[in-house]
């Protein structure tokens, strides 16, 4: 068995492994459209509807984390983020619905497209039958990725369309950045002393979730349906 890699935090390794995918997300036409403010609102509507469904399942992953974690402090943190997801982030989606001119009821009527279904099933499955390190490795590309994209987009002049400017402000906010940093530190803590095999498994999960993140933009850009 090869010795674990010492001297490098796992979060750094994960970032390097997924960097091409994350950079491709920044270059994705959907993300570029938010940055420029030129994104067709009909496409953004897809994102609001599908991400709303995604967040319901993402909240379940935080609930699994709270149930599995080993200290009161981390349990409290996951409970707090669960609350933020259900009652702040999903409320913002309901506000997007109003600002983009569709009924909040549509959020409840929408059904998952294939990528949303596969990604959320992957997360819930990993949360249920993986350990805490695996759970965090799988959920991190969403929490960290959105904070990363938000921060990168916020470096440029905001788009003229205030609705897209607010999207960038939301994910670039200190609240999201802090949550991202906390989870990265948690990933490092959970992987301390991990074998090289375990680190490879965590990297595999992290890269797969990163791919799903990229594919989520693809889904919203092109639209998606079941083959029959």
């Amino acid at each position, binding site marked *: 068995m090869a010795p674990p890699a010492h001297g490098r935090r796992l979060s750094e390794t994960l970032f390097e492994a997924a960097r091409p995918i994350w950079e491709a997300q920044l*270059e994705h036409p959907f993300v570029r459209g938010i940055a420029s403010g030129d994104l067709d609102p009909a496409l953004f509507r897809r994102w609001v509807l599908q991400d709303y469904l995604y967040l319901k399942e993402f909240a*379940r992953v935080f609930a699994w984390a709270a149930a599995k974690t080993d200290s009161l402090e981390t349990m409290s943190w996951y409970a707090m983020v669960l609350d933020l997801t259900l009652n702040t982030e999903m409320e913002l989606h309901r506000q997007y619905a109003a600002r983009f001119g569709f009924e909040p009821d549509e959020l409840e009527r929408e059904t998952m497209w294939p990528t949303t279904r*596969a990604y959320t099933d*992957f997360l819930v*499955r990993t949360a249920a*039958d993986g350990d805490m390190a695996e759970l965090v490795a799988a959920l991190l590309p969403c929490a960290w990725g959105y904070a990363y994209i938000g921060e990168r987009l916020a470096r440029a002049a905001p788009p003229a369309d205030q609705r897209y400017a607010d999207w960038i402000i939301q994910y670039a906010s200190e609240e999201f950045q802090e949550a991202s940093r906390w989870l990265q530190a948690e990933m490092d803590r959970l992987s301390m002393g991990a074998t090289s095999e375990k680190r490879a498994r965590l990297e595999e999960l992290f890269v797969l979730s990163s791919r799903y993140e990229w*594919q989520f933009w693809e889904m919203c850009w092109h639209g*998606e*349906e079941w083959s*029959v």
Partner: protein
Amino acid sequence: MGFCADQLARLDKLWELMLRHPFLLETRDGTISDARFARWMQQDYLFVEAAVPFLTTLLHHAPPEHETPHREAIEALHEELDLFRERARTTGVELDVAEPAFICHAYIQFLLATAHARPYAEAYTVLYVAEKAYHESWRVVQAKIDPGSRWLPFVENWAGEAFASYVAYLEQELDRLASSASAEEQARMADLFELTVRYEIAFWELAMTGMEWPGLGESESVDPVTRGV
């Protein structure tokens, strides 16, 4: 009618699409290419491997009267894996080199997420539909396949009487579970019933075309994703 018959009637067009899938018809007629059948073998082998933890999780949540049937079904899955390995040796198909294609991966995640996170009756719905779909699909092939076909052992496994009895038992039990479920629970079971049929069709489509994901178009962006993890 019971829950299963109601759902099969509701989804009859979808079910028919599945039974008329070119993969089944070409296997039946002996015109399926070796490459396509090999792709199905590789992907279904991975799926059957994943069905073991699916059933194990179901067993963990099962009422006492379902424990023995689930244990026997897990044993049967191991026999199926042996069948795959034997056929692979005989036909020169490499099973161990394949990575799950996207549909295979997604279907496996769906099975396991449902078993872990949804009520027992919902996960049982997925089990029934997957097994019913396989039984009826391979019966289509059985109707006309050449008795000398090297794929016949697969056909006999899922189209045979023992598997038919298992599917009939699952149907009876799912009807019983549904009869004591609330209307909301039955609605969720119906959704999962339909989704499982869609995955079954997508799986035949994967075997036939090698497609990675239904409905996914070409992106203007550079695709950094090596799918099939």
